[in-house]
C-alpha cells in the first residue's frame, strides 16, 4: 500500500512519524515528522544543532530512535545499520567523505559489495561507473585514485557510490560546505537531473540562499522540533524561513562599545607557508591586529585560514616572511613561547586539537597553565588548586557537567567550546586567535561566545576572528580582511557585503575599485 501526498498527488517515498532521539542533556529530535515524495529536492533547514543531522542519521540507519516509526513506500522498517538503510534504497553522503584515498574511483564504489565476488573485473565495472555517471551528469575518471581528486570530484564519487547501491533517496549532509562556487553550480545541476529521474533528494543545510535555489519543499527544524513541515518553496520568502529557523523575530543586536584601538599587537608580514600536503597554503600575505579591536578574516573554507591560525600560534612553520607579536619576532618559535607571550588560540577542531577527550575537565582546563604557578609548582601539579581552578571556570563559564572529573568526550559541543573558551580567555590573552568559535553551537551559546569575544575586546585584547559566517564577522569585527587562495584580497572597513563577496571569489580589492571608478 503506497501512500500518496495529498497536495502533489505524488508517491510518498519516506515517511517518518514522531521520531524522538535523546543525547545526554539534549533532546535532539522531539517528535519529529518528515515526509519525502518521489522526485523532489527536499531541504531540511535549521541552525546548527537543530537536529537535522540526527534525524537523517536515524533515516540512514546510524542511530536508533527512542520512539517513532519510519516507513519506506508505505512499509514499516527498522534499520539496524546503514546497510539496512541502503537496502531500502536510502543512501547518505556525509560531510566527511568515507573514501579510501589510495584506491581508484571504481574500487571505492565497489567497496563492501557482494559483487564482484572473487575476480575484480575492474574494466567491466569501470564501464558501469561511467554509464551511471553519464546518466546523472557526474563526470569522474573511474581509474583516478581518490587522493588525486578535488573535493568536488570526491563528493561525486560518494554520490555515485550511493547510486550504484541502488539508492533512490539521497541524503546530502551540508554538501556545499566544502565546495567552491563553481562546484556548487555543478552539484545543483546534478541534483536537478537526479530529481528529474524520480530520485528523491534530502538536502541538509543552514544556508537560506542555497535552500531557496535548489529545493522544491522545505522542512524546518528548530531545537529538535519541526516548525515547518514540507512547505512548498514557491510561495515562501527568505524572511519567513529565517523566522521559522530562528525563534526570535529580530536578530539580537550585540552591544558593541566604542573602543579606541591601541598599538599593533600582531603583525604578519609577507608570510608563506605550506599545507599538510606540502602545497602552498599562504602566499605572501600580510595583516595586522591592534589592541582592542576584532579583526575578521572572511573567506571560503580551505583558502588558508587554518594554516594562518597555526602559523601565528607556532603550530606550523613558515617558509618565508615574519610574524611579530608586540614587536617581538616570533617567527617559527615554539608554541610554548607564544603561550608565554599571551597568545590564546581557539582552534577550529574542538575534539581533535582543542581538547583531550578521555581526560577530565580539570586536565583540559589546565592545559596552558599546568606548568605555571600557582597550579604548577616546581615539577608537581597542585591537584587541589587545579581542581579549584576548574571548578571556578565551570561556574564562571556555565559549563554543564556532573563533575569536573568527567571526561570531556562526554560533553556536548556547546559545553566543550565553553571549556576551551574558559581556558583560553581566563589567561587574559593579549592576542586571541579564534577560528570558527561559534560553529555548531545553538543560538544561546553563540550569543554567549560572541559576548565573551566582545568583552575581551573591551579588555584590550587583540582578536583575530576567522569565520565563515559572514553575519558573525560583520556584527563583531572592526575591520574585515578577505582571504582567497592564501592571499589577502583586501580590507573592508564599512562591512560592504558586496565587496567581501567579490573578494571571496578571487577579485582583489584594487580590481573592484578600478571597476568602480570607471
Amino acid at each position, binding site marked *: 500500500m503506497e501512500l500518496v501526498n495529498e497536495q502533489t498527488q505524488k508517491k510518498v517515498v519516506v515517511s517518518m512519524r514522531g521520531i524522538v532521539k535523546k543525547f545526554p542533556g539534549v533532546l535532539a529530535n522531539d517528535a519529529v515528522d518528515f515526509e519525502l515524495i518521489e522526485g523532489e529536492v527536499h531541504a531540511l533547514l535549521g541552525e546548527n544543532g537543530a537536529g537535522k543531522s540526527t534525524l537523517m542519521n536515524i533515516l540512514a540507519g546510524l542511530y536508533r530512535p527512542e520512539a517513532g516509526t519510519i516507513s519506506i513506500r508505505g512499509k514499516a522498517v527498522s534499520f539496524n545499520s546503514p546497510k539496512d538503510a541502503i537496502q531500502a534504497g536510502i543512501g547518505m553522503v556525509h560531510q566527511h567523505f568515507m573514501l579510501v584515498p589510495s584506491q581508484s574511483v571504481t574500487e571505492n564504489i565497489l567497496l563492501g559489495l557482494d559483487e564482484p565476488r572473487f575476480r575484480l573485473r575492474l574494466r567491466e565495472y569501470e564501464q558501469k561507473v561511467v554509464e551511471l555517471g553519464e546518466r546523472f551528469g557526474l563526470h569522474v575518471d573511474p581509474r583516478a585514485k581518490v587522493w588525486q581528486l578535488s573535493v568536488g570530484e570526491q563528493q561525486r564519487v560518494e554520490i555515485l557510490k550511493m547510486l550504484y547501491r541502488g539508492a533512490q533517496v539521497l541524503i546530502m549532509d551540508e554538501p556545499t560546505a566544502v565546495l567552491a562556487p563553481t562546484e556548487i553550480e555543478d552539484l545543483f545541476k546534478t541534483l536537478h537531473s537526479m530529481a528529474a529521474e524520480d530520485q528523491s533528494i534530502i538536502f541538509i543545510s543552514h544556508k537560506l540562499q542555497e535552500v531557496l535555489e535548489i529545493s522544491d519543499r522545505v522542512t524546518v527544524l528548530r531545537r529538535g522540533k519541526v516548525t515547518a513541515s514540507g512547505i512548498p518553496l514557491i510561495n515562501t520568502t527568505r524572511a519567513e524561513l529565517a523566522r521559522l529557523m530562528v525563534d526570535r523575530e529580530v536578530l539580537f543586536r550585540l552591544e558593541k562599545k566604542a573602543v579606541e584601538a591601541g598599538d599593533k599587537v600582531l603583525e604578519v608580514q609577507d608570510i608563506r607557508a605550506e599545507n599538510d600536503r606540502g602545497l602552498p597554503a599562504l602566499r605572501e600575505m600580510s595583516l595586522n591586529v591592534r589592541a582592542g579591536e576584532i579583526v575578521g578574516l572572511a573567506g571560503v573554507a580551505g583558502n588558508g585560514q587554518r594554516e594562518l591560525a597555526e602559523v601565528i600560534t607556532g603550530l606550523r612553520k613558515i617558509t618565508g616572511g615574519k610574524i611579530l607579536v608586540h614587536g617581538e619576532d616570533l617567527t617559527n618559535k615554539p608554541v610554548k613561547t607564544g603561550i608565554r607571550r599571551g597568545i590564546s*588560540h581557539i582552534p577550529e577542531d574542538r575534539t581533535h*586539537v582543542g581538547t583531550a577527550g578521555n581526560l577530565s575537565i580539570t586536565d583540559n582546563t589546565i592545559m596552558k597553565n*599546568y606548568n605555571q604557578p600557582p597550579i604548577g609548582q616546581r615539577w608537581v*601539579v597542585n591537584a587541589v588548586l587545579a581542581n579549584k581552578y576548574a571548578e571556578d571556570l565551570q561556574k564562571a563559564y556555565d559549563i554543564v557537567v556532573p563533575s569536573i572529573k568527567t571526561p570531556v568526550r562526554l560533553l556536548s559541543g556547546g559545553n566543550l567550546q565553553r571549556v576551551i573558551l574558559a581556558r583560553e580567555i581566563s589567561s587574559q590573552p593579549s592576542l586571541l586567535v579564534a577560528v570558527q568559535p561559534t560553529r555548531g553551537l545553538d543560538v544561546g551559546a553563540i550569543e554567549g561566545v560572541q559576548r565573551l569575544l566582545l568583552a575581551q575586546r573591551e579588555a584590550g585584547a587583540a582578536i583575530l576572528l576567522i569565520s565563515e559566517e559572514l553575519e558573525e564577522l560583520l556584527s563583531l569585527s572592526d575591520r574585515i580582511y578577505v582571504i582567497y587562495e592564501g592571499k589577502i584580497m583586501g580590507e573592508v572597513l564599512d562591512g560592504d557585503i558586496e565587496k567581501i563577496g567579490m573578494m571571496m571569489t578571487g577579485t582583489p580589492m584594487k580590481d573592484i575599485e578600478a571597476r568602480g571608478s570607471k
Partner: protein
Amino acid sequence: MTESSLKPIRRLQLPFQIHVEQRLEDVPRWFPVLISFGAIVVALILGGIIIVIAGGDPFATYIHIARASFGSLGVFSDTLVKATPLIFVGLACALAFKMRLWNIGAEGQFFMGAWGASLVVLLPILPSETPQWLFILVMLVVGMVCGAIWGFIPGFLKAKLQVNEIITTLMMNYIAVSWVNYFIFAVWTEGGFQMSRMFPKNAWLPRLSDLAESMPIFRGLTTHSGLLLALVAAGVVWFILFRSQWGYEIRLLGDNRDAARYAGISVARNTIFVMMLSGALAGLAGMSEISGVVHRLQGAISPGYGFTGIIVAWLAKLNPAAVIVVSILFGALILAGREIQPSGIPKMIQGCILVCLIASDFLLRYRVYITRRIQE
C-alpha cells in the same frame, strides 16, 4: 539500474535482535570492577571446560592452583618472587603505553639491566669485599642505566626519524639476549658452562630468610627486597603520572598528540625521556632478578617476563596500583601452573583470562540492547 546486480542478503531471522550502541555517558565506578570480575568467572568456566576435555576435574584443579600459590606462607612468598619482576616490567610498559609509545622491548631492557648489574660484579667495577649497601646501590644504578640506554635508542629513532618503535624495540630484544649470551658463553663462562660464577653474598638483595635468626617465621622464605623496590617504583610511577607536570604531559600526549602540541608540549623530548624511564624500570627488573633470585648471570633468567609485562600493563589498564595486583595474580598463575602441568593447560587458562578481560572492555564502551524484531 543496479537493483538486479544487488542480491538481497539472506539473513537469519530471529524473533529478537541484538543492537549495539556506543555509550554516551560515563559508567559508574563499580561497573568496571564488576565487569572484570564477571570476565574472570567466564574465563574460569571456559578453563574448566578445557580441563574436563583433558580428562581432569576442574574443581580439584582450581583448588590445587589456589593452594599452590596462596595456600601457605611459603608458596605465597614464592608467588611474590615471581610477581616482583612482573611489577617492574608491568610499570615499564604501563608508563610507555600511557603515552601511546608501544615499547614491547621490556624483555631486552630486562636482559640489559641484568647484564649491567652483573657487570658491577664480574668486570669487576667494585671489589668483592665492597659493603652490601654500596654493592646493591651501584648494581641498581648500572642496571637502570643499561636498561635506559636500551630504551633511549628506539626512543631517539622514533623522536628524530619517526622510526616505528614497535619494530625497533622488538628487534632490540634479540640483540640484548644475544649480547648476554655472548658474555655467558665467552667472557664470563665458568668452567665451560653457559653461566657466570656465583655472585658474592654481599651482592645479593636481602631475603626474608636472612631475618630468620631473629624471626623464625621467615625461615625459608625466598621473597627478596626487590619486591620492596618494586612497590616503591609503583608509587613513584603513580606519582609521576598523576601528580607531576611531566606526567600531565605524558597523559595529554597519550590521549591526543595534537592537543598536546597545541598546548606547547614537545613530542620528541617526551618520547625520548619516557622510553628511557620505561627502559630503566625494565632494567631494574633484570637487576632485581639477578641480585635477588639467580645470583649469577645465565641464559635462562626470564621466562618472557618482558612480554608478560605487556599483558600485565594492559590488564591493569595502565594503572600502577593495579599493576601490583595483576602481577601477583600472574605470579600465582606462573607458579601454580607449573605445579599442575609444565606447559599446556595452565597457559590455556591464562589465555582464557586474558581474552575474556580484554573482550569485557567492550561492555564498558558500548551498551547492548536486545529488542524485538518488528513484524514485516
